[in-house]
C-alpha cells in the first residue's frame, strides 16, 4: 500500500459559489480510509504554494476519492484550476477516524458548513438510525444536500439567517434537540468552524453526553513530523494530524 501516491484528476467542479468537489483516481494501490481521516493534496506543482494542503475525504468510490473544498487562499484557488487528466501527488490516508458509537448510544452528527465533508462518509457507514444536524450561514452555503438526502437518515437543517430549514445557529439546534429527547443516549460527532465546535462541546458537557470533534490547524507535513499542528489538550499538546484530527470532546482545552 502506498501512502505517498499520484492520483489523476477525474473531475473538478464547483458545487456552489465558493466550494468545489474534486474527484481523483489514485494510480497506485492505497489503503482504505476510515471516515474522518484526511489526505495531504498537492494543489499545484510549484514552489509557491510549497506545501500540500490537508483535506478530509468526502467519499470513496471503488476507484476514486472525492474531496470537498472551499476557495480560501492561493492553494485552493490553484487547486480549483486542476483539469481532468492532470496528475497530483497525494499523501494519505492520515490521522485518526471517527470511532464507532459505543453500544446503547445513537450517533448524533453535527456538521457546520464544510464540516459535512468529513462527516458524510461517516454517516454512510452508520445505520440509518443516526441523526444529522446540518447548519450553514445561509441557504446557498449548504453542500451536497441531494447526497445528504439519499443517506435516508433523519436530517435537521438550519441557517443562521433563517433562509432555510430551522432558523438559528446549529449549536442552538443541538441544544434544543438534546433537551427534547432527554431519555435517549447519544454520542455526538461534530465537524465545523472552531467556535461552533467549542459551543457544541459545551452543550454536550451540559447534557452529559460523550462525543468527538474533528479539528483543523495549519500543518506543514500532515504525518506527524513538523509538530506545527499542535492543539492544547488536557494531556499537553497533541498533533492534529497524528493523534487527531478526531479527538474526544473532553480532551480538548478550548
Amino acid at each position: 500500500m502506498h501512502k505517498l501516491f499520484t492520483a489523476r484528476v477525474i473531475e473538478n467542479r464547483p458545487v456552489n459559489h465558493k466550494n468545489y468537489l474534486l474527484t481523483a483516481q489514485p494510480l497506485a494501490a492505497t489503503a482504505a480510509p476510515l471516515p474522518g481521516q484526511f489526505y495531504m493534496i498537492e494543489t499545484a506543482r510549484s514552489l509557491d504554494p510549497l506545501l500540500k494542503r490537508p483535506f478530509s475525504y468526502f467519499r470513496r468510490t471503488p476507484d476514486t476519492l472525492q474531496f470537498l473544498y472551499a476557495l480560501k487562499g492561493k492553494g485552493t484557488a490553484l487547486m480549483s484550476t486542476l483539469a481532468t487528466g492532470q496528475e497530483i501527488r497525494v499523501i494519505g490516508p492520515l490521522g485518526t477516524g471517527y470511532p464507532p458509537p459505543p453500544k446503547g448510544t445513537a450517533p448524533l452528527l453535527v456538521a457546520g458548513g464544510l464540516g459535512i465533508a468529513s462527516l458524510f462518509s461517516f454517516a454512510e457507514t452508520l445505520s440509518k438510525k443516526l441523526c444529522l444536524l446540518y447548519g450553514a450561514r445561509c441557504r446557498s452555503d449548504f453542500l451536497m444536500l441531494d447526497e445528504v438526502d439519499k443517506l435516508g437518515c433523519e436530517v435537521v437543517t438550519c441557517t443562521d439567517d433563517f433562509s432555510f430549514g430551522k432558523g438559528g445557529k446549529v449549536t442552538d439546534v443541538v441544544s434544543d434537540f438534546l433537551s427534547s429527547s432527554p431519555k435517549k443516549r447519544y454520542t455526538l460527532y461534530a465537524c465545523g468552524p472552531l467556535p461552533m465546535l467549542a459551543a457544541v462541546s459545551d452543550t454536550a458537557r451540559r447534557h452529559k453526553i460523550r462525543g468527538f470533534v474533528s479539528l483543523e490547524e495549519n500543518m506543514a507535513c500532515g504525518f506527524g513530523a513538523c509538530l506545527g499542528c499542535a492543539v492544547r489538550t488536557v494531556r499537553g499538546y497533541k498533533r492534529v494530524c497524528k493523534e487527531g484530527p478526531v479527538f474526544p470532546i473532553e480532551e480538548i482545552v478550548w
Partner: protein
Amino acid sequence: MDLSVSIGRLNLKNPVMTASGTFGYGEEYTDFMDPSVLGGIIVKGISLKPMEGNPPPRICETPCGMLNAIGLQNVGLKNFLKEKLPYLRKFETKIIVNILGKSIQEYVKIAKALDGAGVDGIELNVSCPNVKKGGITFGTDQRSLSQLINSVRQAVPSATIITKLSPNVSSIPDFAKTAEDAGSDAISLINTIPALAIDPETWKPRLANVTGGLSGPAIKPIALRMVWEAAQAVQIPVIGVGGILNSSDAVEFLLAGASAVQVGTGNFVNPRATSEIVEGLSAYLQRKNIHSVSAIIGKLKTP
C-alpha cells in the same frame, strides 16, 4: 560511484542528512522511505528537560517557504535515551543528535550523556538564549559561542561536534572561524532566518509567537552565499542547509563548498525527498562522468 564523505571522524555513506526538527525521531518517515539509505539523521533538538513548545498557530506558509515557531518541543534527554534512541539505532545510518540548553552546563550534561550512549555525533543548536549571560544567544556572540564549544569539546573529547550557525550575524566567516578555533569538527548552516508574517485582515501576526524561523526554497540563495563564504574561511567541513528540495539543489551546495547537506522543509513537501536526493546525486555524477562526490565539493567556478 563513491558518494561517501567525511565529517570530522565520521564517515558518511553519502552526503545527505535530515535537518534537525524536520525528521522527528525517525518514526514518521518509515511509511515513505527507508532511513537507512541516508548519510545521517540529525535528530530533533534535545534539551535536558522535556519542553512542551509554543501555543498554536505554530506555522504558516509564506511565498516559497514557511515560518515556524514550534518552540523546541521535545521529549527531553531522559526519554530520548530510553524511548527514542533504541529505535533510531535500528537504522544503518549515522545518528547525530541536535542539542540545546540555557547554559553551558546544560549543553555539557546532555553532550556527556549522549556520548556515553554511543551516538555518532552531536550538533550544537546555538540559537538559544544564554540565561546566565542575560539572554544573549550563543550563536550571535563570538565569545559565548567560543566558550560553549570549548566546554563541550573538553567534556566529550572524542565525539564529533557540529556547530549549527545562525544566519543572524553580520559576518558568517567570523563565526565559522570561531567555531573551528574552539574545536568544532564541522559547522552546519544556515539555521532558519528570523521572520514575521502578518494577516492584513485581522491585523494580527500569523504565528502566536509573533515571529518565527523562515525556511524553504525562499532562503536557499542566502544559505548558498553563507555556505560559500564559510567554506572559504575554515578548513573543517561545512554542511549546507537551506531550502534543499532535490538533488540539483544539493549539488549547488556541494559546489559552494559544502561537504554534506541537510534537508529540512523539503521533507514536509515530499517525505521521500532525501532518498530521491541520494539517487539523484548518483545519477548526476554518472551523467557528468565523475566517480566521487568529493570531486565536486567547492568546485564553484568564479570569475
